Each structure stands twice: as C-alpha cells, then as structure tokens.
C-alpha cells in the first residue's frame, strides 16, 4: 500500500457516513482557511505601510454590523453541524436486533474474543460479511480501547463496566484492530486483526474450530458448582428470585429503582448483591467478588440468558 491514500478503506456501513461528515468538515474548514488567508494576503499587500491605497475612517455602525453578522453566521454553522452529526450519532447508537453477539475482553496486552457458540480467539476476530455484529466489551485490568479504522468504530474497554459498539462489515478481507487507549508498556503491541469472510468461508471456519462446548453449557455447570442453584431454583428452601426467563426483563428493586436485567446488571448482582436487592427479597446473597473471574461471569450470563421460562433444570 502506498502512504498517499487520504481515507482508510471503507469496510463497514458506518464508514461512508463518517467519511461524508468528515469530507464536509474538510470542505467547510478549507473554505474558511482559504478565505482568511486570502483576506490577510490582500490586506497585507494593499495596505502595506506607505502604499497609496485610500484609508477612509470606518463607521462604528459598520463594525457592529460585521460583528453581529459573523457571530450569527458562525453560530448558525456550528448549530447546523451539531444537528447533523448529533443525529447521525444517535441513529447509529443501537445495534440491530439480530446482531451476532461477541464478547471482547481487554487484558494487558491482548484481546480475548468469545463467540456466542463458545469459540475463543486471541487477537483475532472472524466475522461474516454483511451481518451486524455487536461487541460487548470489558477489561480485566486497565482501560483499553477497541479501534478498527476501516470500520470507523472505537469504544473504550473499561474494567468494571460493559461497553458496547457494533458494526456491519461490507468488505471481505483483513482489517487492523488497534488498542487506542494507552494501557502500559506494550500498548503499541496490543493489536489484532478482524477477518471478514463471506458466508461460506465463515461457515467453514466455524466448522474447523475445535468445539469447546458452548458458553451456556459451561455456565450451567458453573451455576451448580458455585452453589447458585442452591437458592435460585424455584423450590429451594432459601427464598431467592428465580432466574427463569428473566433476561431482558425489567426488575423492580427494593430501593424503588427499576432496571433491565442485562449483562452489566447480572455482573453487578454477582459481585455486589447488596447494591441491587429485588423488591420483596432479603439481601441474603453473598458477594462473589474475588471468587469468579470475568470469563466465568460471561458464562454464567450466557447460561442465564439461555434459560426459558420453564426454569433451570436439575
């Protein structure tokens, strides 16, 4: 590749939208810079010291009119660009419903990727072309940032928080993945590649991966091993909320808040049960802080998500 391309490859649905805004801003900026530089040049030459150009006095009123004029003009332009960019941002926020859900974990200095069927990758992510992919990301240590220039997406990967972004790749091929939040010694080596494949290749790739048993099944065995099933099954002696069919629903808490049962909330409940007590229950659950890893939380979450309203079996 030569170094003289001005735009990176447009390989996602977000890319052309971002580039359109970018080019518009380049155009506006260039126009303003040229205007200013041209005016300065013309004034500098015409009104150089000792030149014969006439210099009658400026009227106060003219000054005022000019000031109000360009203040209003600048404000209008700024608000116009804000309106446009703001609406583009809001329209791109939510991932489509049918998106493939990929879990990303940042760790000094590598990217750990988990596919919904349990396949794991390190520093690489294989995705099919023309399908939306939602990334649910967290970090094990410091803040990282997931940046794919060709997709024009970037989102920090923050410890203790789930952040999200999504993309829909439009070109097959391999793209850079960079960590853009400085994360320590080997920050510049925390890179990877996104491999976008057509559907057949992707299916073949999936088949070729060792099948590790899917996340939800692993989560189910953890659910028993950690003793969660002792309380969270419908007929247990200790009264704890049943988790069947609860994922994605609204939960009422004893302090009056209502929250959606999602990945971040499940994580919170496991690590900090006393912060989020469901209405009508006692704060009896112990904290699993320090006992479960982020990876295990991922599997537990996958299990809870997989539960239909019939309730956990055995």
């Amino acid at each position, binding site marked *: 590749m030569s170094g003289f391309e001005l735009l990176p490859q447009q390989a996602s649905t977000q890319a052309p939208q971002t580039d359109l805004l*970018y080019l518009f801003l380049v155009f506006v900026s260039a126009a303003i810079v040229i205007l200013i530089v041209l005016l300065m040049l013309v004034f500098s030459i015409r009104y150089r010291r000792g030149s014969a150009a006439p210099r009658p006095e400026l009227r106060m009123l003219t000054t005022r009119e000019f000031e109000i004029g360009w203040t209003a003009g600048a404000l209008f332009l700024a608000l116009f660009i804000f309106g446009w960019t703001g609406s583009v941002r809001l329209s791109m926020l939510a991932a489509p419903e049918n998106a493939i859900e990929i879990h990303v974990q940042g760790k000094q200095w590598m990217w750990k990727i988990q596919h919904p069927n349990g396949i794991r990758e390190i520093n690489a992510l294989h995705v099919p072309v023309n399908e939306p992919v939602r990334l649910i990301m967290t970090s094990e240590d*410091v803040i990282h940032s997931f940046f794919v220039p060709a997709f024009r997406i970037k989102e920090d990967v923050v410890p203790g928080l789930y952040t999200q972004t999504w993309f829909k790749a439009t070109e097959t091929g391999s793209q850079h993945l960079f960590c853009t939040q400085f994360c320590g010694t080997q920050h510049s080596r925390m890179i990877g590649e996104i491999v976008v494949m057509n559907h057949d290749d992707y299916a073949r790739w999936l088949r070729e991966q060792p099948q590790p048993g899917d996340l939800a099944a692993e989560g189910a065995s953890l659910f028993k091993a950690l003793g969660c099933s002792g309380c969270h099954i419908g007929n247990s002696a200790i009264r704890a909320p049943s988790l069947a069919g609860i994922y994605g629903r609204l939960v009422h808490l004893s302090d009056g808040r209502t929250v959606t049962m999602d990945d971040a909330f499940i994580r919170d409940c496991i690590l900090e049960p006393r912060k989020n007590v469901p209405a009508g229950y006692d704060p009896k659950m112990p904290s699993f802080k320090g006992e479960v890893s982020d990876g295990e939380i991922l599997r537990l979450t996958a299990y809870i998500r997989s539960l239909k309203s019939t309730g956990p079996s055995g």
Partner: protein
Amino acid sequence: MTDAAIGQGMPKAAEEPRSYLDTESFVSWLTTTDHKRIAVLYAITVTFFFLVGSGAMALIRYELTSPQGNILSDEAYNRLFTLHGVVMVWFFLIPSIPAIFGNFLLPLMIGARDVAFPRLNLASWYLNFIGGLFVLYALLAGGVDTGWTFYTPLSTMFANGNVIAAAVGIFITGFSSIATGINFIATVHLLRTEGMTWFRLPLFVWAMYAVSLVFILATPVLAITLVLIMAERLFGLPVFDPANGGDPLLFQHLFWFYSHPAVYIMILPAMGVVSEVITCFARRQVFGYTFMVFSLVAIAIIGFFVWGHHMFVSGMSSYAGVVFSLISFVVAVPSAIKVFNWTATLYRGQISFESPMLYALGFVGLFTVGGLTGLFLAAIPVDVHVHDTYFIIAHFHYIMVGGSVSALYAALHFWWPKVTGKLYPENWARFAAILMFFGFNFTFFPQFLVGYLGMPRRYHVYPPEFQTLQVMSSTGASVLALAYALPIVYLTWTLFNRDWKAPDNPWGATGLEWQTSSPPPKENFRALPAVHSAPYHYHETGEAPDPRAQDEAEQ
C-alpha cells in the same frame, strides 16, 4: 509622531533612571519581589523545561522514523512521551506567556508599580521550580509511563513508574498557577491607574484576566484529583479503582474538568499577545474591541462546560456526549469572532512586517486550522474515528505549538527591547519566523493524514503503511527545531553585545509599557501615568501612522 516626539511627552529626568536589571547581587535576584525580575526568573526556568521537553520530543520523532520500534525500548518510549507531555504542559506552556510576559507586562500596562501581592508572586516561582524538581526527580528515578493524562486504573494500580513524585510535582506547581491567578485578578481589579477604565484595558490584560479565572477555578480540581490518585496508589484508599467498585470514568470527568480549560490557559494569553502585535504593526485600532473582550471572557467561561468531548468513546453515556458536543460547537463561535476580528484589523491599516508581526500572522493561520479541526472532534461520529489517533495530536499541536508557541515567540521579539533594553538582528528574526511557519506545517500536517488513516497515538511500533507520513513529520520536526533554536541563539547573543541598545519605544506602540524607559526602572514609572484614551490609538483616518500613547491627552 516619531519616537522622539513621544519621548518628549514623558517625564524624563536628566539622570537616567536605574533599570530593574541593575543587579546588586545574586541573592537579590532570588529574594526579589519585583514582578519584572520574577518574570525573568520564570523565563529562565521555562526555557530550561522547554529544552528538556524538546529533547524528549527529538528522541520520540527519531524513534518514529522506523515502524519496527527498534531504536527505543517500549518502556523508554512510554517514559519519553509522558515526560514530553508533563513537562511541556505544566512547566512550559502553562507558565510560559502568563508567568513571563503576564508578570512583566501586566503592572506596566495598567500603570501600576507591581502586582497586588509581590511576595506571593515570588512564592509562585519557587512553587513552580520545586514542582519542576519533583518531576525531574521522577524522570531520573525510573520515569513515569502513564501518559500525561494519568488515567486510572493504569496510574494507580498498574504503572511501575514514579507516579507519586510526578503527581506531587504537578500538585505543587498547580499552586503556583493559582497564586499567579489570584495575583493577576487582584491586580487588575485594584491597581489600575487613574483613567484606566475596564474598557481601556489592552486586550493582553483582558487575556490575562480571563486566563486567571481559569487558573483559580480549574487548577484546584486537578489538585484534588492528584490527591485522590496519590491516596489510591500510596495508601490503598480506592476511589476510582474498579476492582473496589470505583468508577474510572469519574477520574476522567475530574481530570478533564481541569485539563480542557487548561487548553484555554495555553491559548488565551496567545490571543492577547497577537492582539497587541497585530494592532501595533497594522497601525490600526483593533476591530471590534468590545467583541474581542467578550469573546475572551466567553471562551474562558464556556471552556469549562465542554470537557466531556474528551470522553465520547470512554463509556460515558451517549446522551451526555450529545450535550457536550452541542456546547463544544458553541465554544467555537467566540474563537471564530477573534479570527475574523484580527483579519479585519488589517483592513485599511499601515501594515509593516517586522518579525513579531510575522509570528502573529503565522499564529492566525495556524490557530485557524487548529480551531477548525476542533470542530471535527466536537462532531461525535468523526471523533469516534479520530479519537486517540494522530489526528488529535496534530489538532492540539496546531493550537498549542502553532498557536501558543508562535505567540510566545511573537511576544519574545515584540517585548525583547522592553525587557532587556536590546534590539536584535531583524533579518535573522524574520527568517526564523518564516522557517518556523513552514517547519511547523511540515511537521504536523502529515499527522492529520496519518491520524485519519487510523494510526493510534502513543504507538512506537506501527504498521509500515504509516511510515512515509511519519518520516515526513520527523523531517519537518528537525526544521522546526532549528527555527526554535535560532532565536534563542541570537537573542542571547544580543545580551552580551553593547551595540544593540534599544530605544524606549522602538515600534511606536501606544501601550503604557512603552512610555517608560527600556528596560524599565525598578518602580516601573517615575510618576504613575494617567490614561486619557482607549488602547490602540494608532490612526483614525490619517494616511500616515499617527499613534497616540494611552497616557497622552487629546490635543
């Protein structure tokens, strides 16, 4: 009116007034409460830190000529850019114009004998110096590898370097900023000479006033944030640590509450300098004085409301992001007003092109580019792509280096005769100014391109397709280094040469600082001047330059 004629208007006694530079002893310098001497002390330390920061930058640019990262180790590179950031932000840019030229000129421009609290002023220099020693110690004793932003939990739980010493140094130097801010505000409020009403203040004074507001309202938040970092790292008292339930984004809110306004600490003084220089060499009253004043104050105030645009991709709520985006677009308006007004000031002027003017015109161009690329960063979808890439690096260097450092050099050349009583070789100065403009663009424009192509900042190992632009940038940096070094050489040389004695008012400028001797006497004015007119009374209609000093009564 010529220089000599202006000289007649002054109460000039037969005997030459003693200059503030006439030194009794070395100790008298270290215990001085004279604002002019303190300015010189600051000039020495700031220059020293500029050289330290530039040295780090030279190594960084050298390393980046090769994509394999094979010249410096990972650690060395990380420590160097942290050092470059910390030193350049807190020990060069922030004290540069306010503490050197603000200190020197503010009392002179408003017709006062000194700042309001001279001993506090000296204390501020010592605080800055001691803070600098801590940072240098941190550098020698292992270095710091967190970046100048000290993001948690990296800085508190993971980094190996000497974070505490650096944080202590910045904490201490923060109080020097606060002391300067308090001093300037009190001075402007209480010590204006007779007739110096608020709307007769030169714009440089207004800029110092605005920047002081930022000093006293933003710096304490940085101080407390550093205290929290130290508590977390040293005593294990977590506030931001996610492993203990803390929120690392809270750190970013607090940090940028200071550090975004800190950008305005760096640019507002530059705007003040450029307003003085352009009016003087265009022989023109500044276009739209009141709008210039209000836009300075508006930038200082609205600048506090926009910090969230550093956090669009941080995991902050996207709706908060939209709010911050809106305010960030609004803060562009007063900056635009200033650019238009500087340009319009040239209209119907009597423009000459001495070196300060060349630096100032360069400033307007570079600041315009820097300001406009700021719009890209306020536009969230574009910011998502360019955040933490070289685009950002290029943007803020256009503001801080193209803007502030150009203005610093403009100020240096403009007021050098007043500060030292010496002139300098004008053609060398013009050459340096032009070289700087081209060297700067050569260095930083390629970084816009490589940034949009996706090269992240703080990478020393990078994909080979970015090498061409990085090498261009490093080449430009060596030109730029030459352009920065040149004035330091010839200006220092004039100090030791008797032939370059400067007249009191070499540019025929109207400000009060030019109506006293060069260099000024210890007490600034033999008798305090009274002010009779607005600043920049250069010429109203005249075909020839016809300046009237501020302390000259109307005929």
